[in-house]
């Protein structure tokens, strides 16, 4: 027989990845559904994925300008945009993925499929949003006459790290959220903190070059996976006007990848019980 399924209390790992592949159609449809639904019954529709980050960029630039926070490089707007777009991707991917199992609880309790599909497809939807909003960056760069150089080839690497960290943290919290709904309230809080500890309005350079801050604060600062991602975005878009701190980048992205590994392990371990407790 072609299909033989053995169901036991702790089903093996080997089949899981094969299963995941055979359910790729569902993965596609869930992502497609979320994209379709996202801006249903709105007047400007998909334009929201450009307007939302644009408003944030303006607000942050204004605050930065008003308080005269250091902004090296060609343009404050460009500096803020290069940080806001990946940050908004990260925050929406993280929070959507964290809540994804609960919002799909009717599916979880009525149909079988590898549950990993749910958070992953949510993150993919956020990625699509990000790609659309990338138009903003392109336009800003044209306006500022800032042509990217070869550094831009690294951009996908930084995006990949943002994606894996968001997915990892998202999977971990999603699995916890199934059992402890407290996380529904904790997530917005974490994201709010993130707005302050990530270099959105300022440049990481002000931290690294600061003489007032002790060394260990700079290390703690770079534990945030988004620090590496944002620094990387700025470096790859604006070239040498934004120097790259690779040591801090390795700490930061190491933490991001650790999130991913822990997330996936915890998710797999608890996945079998989702339908029982959701």
């Amino acid at each position: 027989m072609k299909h033989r399924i053995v169901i036991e209390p702790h089903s093996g790992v080997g089949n899981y990845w094969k299963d995941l592949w055979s359910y790729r159609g569902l993965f596609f449809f869930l992502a497609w559904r979320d994209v379709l639904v996202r801006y249903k019954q709105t007047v400007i529709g998909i334009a929201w994925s450009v307007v939302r980050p644009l408003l944030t960029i303006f607000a942050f630039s204004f605050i930065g300008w008003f308080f005269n926070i250091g902004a090296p490089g060609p343009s404050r707007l460009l500096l803020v945009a290069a940080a806001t777009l990946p940050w908004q991707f990260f925050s929406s991917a993280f929070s959507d993925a964290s809540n994804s199992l609960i919002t799909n609880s009717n599916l979880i309790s009525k149909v079988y499929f590898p549950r990993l599909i749910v958070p992953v497809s949510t993150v993919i939807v956020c990625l699509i949003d990000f790609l659309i909003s990338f138009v903003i960056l392109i336009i800003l760069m044209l306006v500022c006459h800032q042509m990217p150089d070869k550094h831009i080839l690294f951009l996908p690497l930084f995006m990949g790290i943002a994606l894996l960290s968001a997915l990892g943290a998202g999977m971990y919290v999603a699995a916890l959220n199934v059992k402890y709904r407290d996380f529904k309230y904790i997530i917005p809080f974490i994201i709010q903190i993130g707005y302050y500890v990530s270099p959105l309005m300022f440049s990481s350079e002000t931290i690294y070059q600061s003489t007032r801050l002790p060394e260990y604060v700079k290390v703690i600062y770079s534990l945030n996976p988004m620090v590496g991602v944002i620094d990387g975005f700025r470096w790859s878009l604006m070239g040498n006007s934004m120097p790259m701190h690779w040591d801090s980048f390795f700490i930061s992205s190491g933490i991001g990848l650790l999130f991913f590994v822990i997330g996936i392990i915890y998710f797999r371990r608890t996945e079998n019980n989702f339908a029982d407790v959701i």
Partner: protein
Amino acid sequence: MRVEPVINVEHLSKSYVLRHKDQAGYSTLRETLSSGARNLFGKGAPAATRETFWALDDVSFQVNAGDRLGIIGRNGAGKSTLLKALSRIIAPTKGRITLEGRVASLLEVGTGFHPELSGRENVYLNGAILGMSREEIKSKFDEIVAFAEVEKFLDTPVKRYSSGMYVRLAFAVAAHLDPEILIVDEVLAVGDAAFQKKCMSRMRDVAGEGRTILFVSHNMAAIQNLCDKCIYMKNGQLITQGETEKVISSYLRSGAEAHQISLEDRKDRSGNGAIRFSSVLLKDGQGRAIPAFQSGMDATVVIRFTRKENKDLKNLQVALALDDENGQRVAHLNNELTNEIFESVGKDSDMIQISIPRFPFKQGMYTITLYASVNGETADWVQEAGVLEVEDGDFFQTGRTIQEGQSPFLFPFHFKLEK
């Protein structure tokens, strides 16, 4: 050639831990932390009493290719848990299930339908959720839409559908699944009569194509109609399995003791008490006690009574009335109507039998009211004495029944062609 079972369930068990104090179904972090802290300080006073509940308890059975297996049992017997375990939604605590072939399970109509999406989009989405590939859905799309009769509204969001249209579309997708093993929970009890009929005949077609079907229903007529084998579950255990007829009759006989309605403690009764009804019991045509009637069966209601004085009674008149779920009186049985008033009741008589050939009501719950008069004076009158449960049965002995909502009762009739 030996027939290999396509479904092999071995010692399947599923347990849940019940916590009696909490109202919430999920725990909050605080509870876990606080009980963790308690354990830490060794003061092991449990936060809530815990009890292990076995939703499935050592269930084993096999299903061969092409079998149509019905699963029956009362609410909470573990039927849905069994289906969920078979569909891989929940992991068993113990035991093992082996399935050979593609499985599709239909535990709910319209799982994953999104209200904002159009009918067309939902067909694709729902199809994918039920395990169809895009090409498969594409090739069956027209068939599905025709079956659901929603051609005109394909591009309308389903949130604007009437509930009937919604259900039709949802079932239509499910009905066009093409698996080797189909697992169906009680989902046919939706939609209007005509559509239900269509669903049933579709299920029969699917069964006819040699597929293996597992079907849970409370509708005995549907089970008799569709399934060749049956298992009967109770309290998470498998009680009997075998031919549908045998299993259904054992199911109907089961739990009869619990279904003797005792009236001795009832205070809300009127009458002079010359006699008092003491219990009501349901029996089938063979005199076996049963918990519920099935439409079409030869049914007997046995009413016991006690008397105030130990002497003969004159002119005992007894009436039994049934009210439906809306409080509407639907039946009145009275021994005056049949000229069977008991003119003289000896000291040793304490039981009245009312026999009802081919019980004519459809599935439902009916409230029993009892009345008795002795010598023209009201002796006992108990309103809402108990509930009579009726399950659908094979009234016409054709395996067919009147669809839900078409008629609350059944009676024999014949059609004839003349010129």
